[in-house]
């Protein structure tokens, strides 16, 4: 009886909360799409001009604009696109002779693989570093880990990536300097070519997550309930994992959500340095070629992933911490 009542109330609070968040996420997405459409409309030139380049004749530009539908008023173009995306069809790319869905699907897989592996490694690493650093507060290990993570936070990713390439590819010839992702490559080939991008990205995100974990855990370790548990003779590992972590998990998962959503859309520098065919470079490409349907759809994906991550983080925090359910 005592066990079932809170569970029902947990569900009772979580479900409306998630529903509300999903609804507001949809509104946010809509607003973002309007903002992106408006701002990208302010960019000089359009897709027709970019395709034809310097040597365009006015007749060509007019003909191509008509074919692309760029001669229609802005709001009609917007609502056509919106109607499409609601039905799940993001339309045709202006530039490549392909549907946006087709273009994104291959890149999305690549980005997901990169982000997924990096996330797996960095979350585990961050938790280990953060917790061991927090329980050794002031000790040698803590100092070393602190220095290292602070140094990594301060180091820009292009520096880490460039140094990595210089050492491991150019000097030692161990790893390829560019991430060649081809469908026929085996898993081991792929891991080898992804090693440097994963290494650089892990360095970037692990530091932030580890710092956040350390702060949250350290904060909890000072609480009276920890002392109480110690006095009761609970083993220290149990105190950390079952007493402290549920209380510390809120800020930790939030930091993780932010870092992980960054992995998908913010990896542009890493994608550029390693020539990785990911989603971020596709979007930058879409901006320079003024390929609106592609740009909009990429933006929707990034925004959607971000919102989903934050939502998951909040839900986890609430589920882990009974006090937040009230």
């Amino acid at each position, binding site marked *: 009886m005592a066990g079932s009542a809170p569970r029902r109330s947990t569900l009772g609070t979580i479900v409306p909360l998630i529903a509300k968040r999903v609804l507001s996420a949809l509104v946010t997405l809509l607003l973002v799409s309007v903002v992106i459409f408006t701002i990208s409309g302010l*960019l*000089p*030139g359009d897709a027709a*001009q*970019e*395709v*034809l*380049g*310097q*040597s365009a*004749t006015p*007749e*060509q530009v*007019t*003909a*191509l604009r008509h*074919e692309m539908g760029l001669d229609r008023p802005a709001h009609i173009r917007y609502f056509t696109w919106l109607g499409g995306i609601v039905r799940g069809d993001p339309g045709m*790319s202006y*530039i*490549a*002779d*392909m549907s946006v869905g087709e*273009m994104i699907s*291959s890149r999305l897989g690549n980005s997901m693989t990169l982000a997924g592996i990096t996330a797996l490694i960095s979350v585990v690493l961050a938790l280990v570093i953060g917790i061991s650093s927090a329980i050794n507060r002031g000790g040698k290990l803590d100092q070393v880990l602190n220095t290292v993570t602070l140094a990594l936070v301060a180091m820009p990713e292009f520096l880490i990536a*460039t140094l990595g*390439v*210089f050492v491991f*590819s*150019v000097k*030692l*010839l*161990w790893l*390829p*300097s*560019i991430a*060649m992702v*081809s469908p026929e490559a085996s898993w081991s080939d792929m891991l080898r070519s992804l090693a440097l991008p994963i290494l650089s990205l892990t360095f970037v995100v692990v530091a932030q997550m580890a710092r956040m974990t350390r702060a949250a855990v350290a904060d909890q370790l000072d609480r009276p309930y920890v002392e109480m548990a110690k006095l009761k003779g609970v083993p220290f590992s149990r105190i950390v994992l079952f007493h402290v972590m549920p209380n510390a998990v809120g800020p930790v998962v939030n930091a993780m959500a932010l870092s992980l959503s960054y992995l998908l859309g913010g990896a542009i520098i890493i994608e*550029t*340095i*390693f*020539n990785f*065919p990911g989603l971020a470079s*596709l979007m930058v*490409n*879409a*901006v*320079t*070629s003024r*390929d609106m349907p*592609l740009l909009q759809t990429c933006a929707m994906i990034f925004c959607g992933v971000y919102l989903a991550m934050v939502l998951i983080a909040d839900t986890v925090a609430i589920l882990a911490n009974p006090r937040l359910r009230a």
Partner: protein
Amino acid sequence: MIGGNLSRRDIISTGLAGAGLLALGGCGGEGGKPRARRGGSIRAATLGLSNADTLDPAKGGTAGDYTRHFMLYNGLTMIEDDSLRPRPSLARTIESDDQITWRIDLQRGVRFHDGSELTSEDVVYSLLRHKDPLVASKMATVAEQFAEVRAEGRHGVIVRLTAANADLPTMLSQSHFLIVRNGQAAPDGNGTGPFKLEEFRPGVRTVGVRNEEYWIPGRPHLERVEVIGIPDEVSRVNALLSGDIQICNAVNPRSTRRVEADPNYAIMATPSALYTNLVMLQDQLPTGNPDFVQAVKLMIDRPLIKRALFRDYATIGNDQPIAPFQPYFNHDLPQTVLDLDKARWHVQRGGLSGVRMPVYASTAAEGSVDMASVLQEYGSKVGLNFAVNRVPADGYWSTHWMRHPMFFGNCNPRPTADLIFSLFFDSNAKWNESRWHNERFDRLLIEARGEGDEARRGELYGEMQRIVHDKCGVAIPVFINLLDGYDRRLKGLRPVPLGGFMGYRFAEYVWWED
């Protein structure tokens, strides 16, 4: 782990050794030239690929596109050495008596990758599609010269131009005029070229495998060529030095020392007519004032620009668009040199002392930002106050180029003197960058275009260069060399001054040797 890399290279080399032995018997006929080996697979990286990559020669706009198109298709003519003279390719002969009506006789028995035979219909279709605005051909303006293109029999084509043009064979050697299959609205790589298309993913890569039935015997030598794009220059050079690619283009002059420090890699410098020019609009003041133009031309420190900006990988320019190594270059034209006293005199005579002028520069025009800074420095010494406005590369050509009194332009090498003059210096040209107007020049342009006599043509182009050098509001400080980095085991490379990668045609000529 070092061993891991070696074995990767060994796989390539053993494959080569086997294929090489087979090929030795076949290619002994080339006199003193080194013998080309058959086999090998290389990866080449160009400046950048994007979603706009295309298999349609007419739409090609980047080095990656040109390279891909030359792998898959052939032109009627081709340029394959530094003489820049067109040679017959799919056209056995191309001749004309009046430079207006041209008679083309095609090679017999040439087959497309799908097995169908090349006929005059394919050529007619390939040439005429440039006139369709929906094809969005980069050569639409040039194709306006085709008054009529028709087949004459199975292997003959007649091209009638709207006016005489002796350069037609050269123009047809450009990648845009490569021959596609009749009726293909969106060409899919089915050409007559040295490589068959195995894989094409826009923005990612192109893979070509040797066309075993290529109509030129003994070519190509390579088994497989993969073309990828690496936009970041540092990454491109790193990829070369770590053995991930075997050749790349657009190496920054600053990286050349790094590449050459390693005995396994080398730089191929291709002198080219690529230039970044400072433009002064002639229909505005003070840029339209001849004294202003002269003063600016006199205060450009060309040797400094050549040395500091391009590490000597450049040729000094003389404010006219024909480079010294190109046909028709006028050797008698005095070289403009840095002369601040003379510049000051022009400034004072024109009443221009203290004039404040914004100059628009951008990374879109290679080297222009640094050139503008150099100009600013010398300007302050002669009483001209230049303000350097550095603007973003994105959208530069549509928003800044030709929209301010003083700005930088950038012009890729064009295959003929006529093209460069008619595109950028003809008074009525859309990109008459400086909006100058010179009737004599315009008359000479038309006369030279139709002139069949080479000596007379040279005289005409010589005089046009003098007029541009003296009167036009365009300063051309240097011609910029194109730098390719390559693995020394890649043999047979030679510069062709139309572009990097042997004028984008390296895949057909090079071979791999350990």
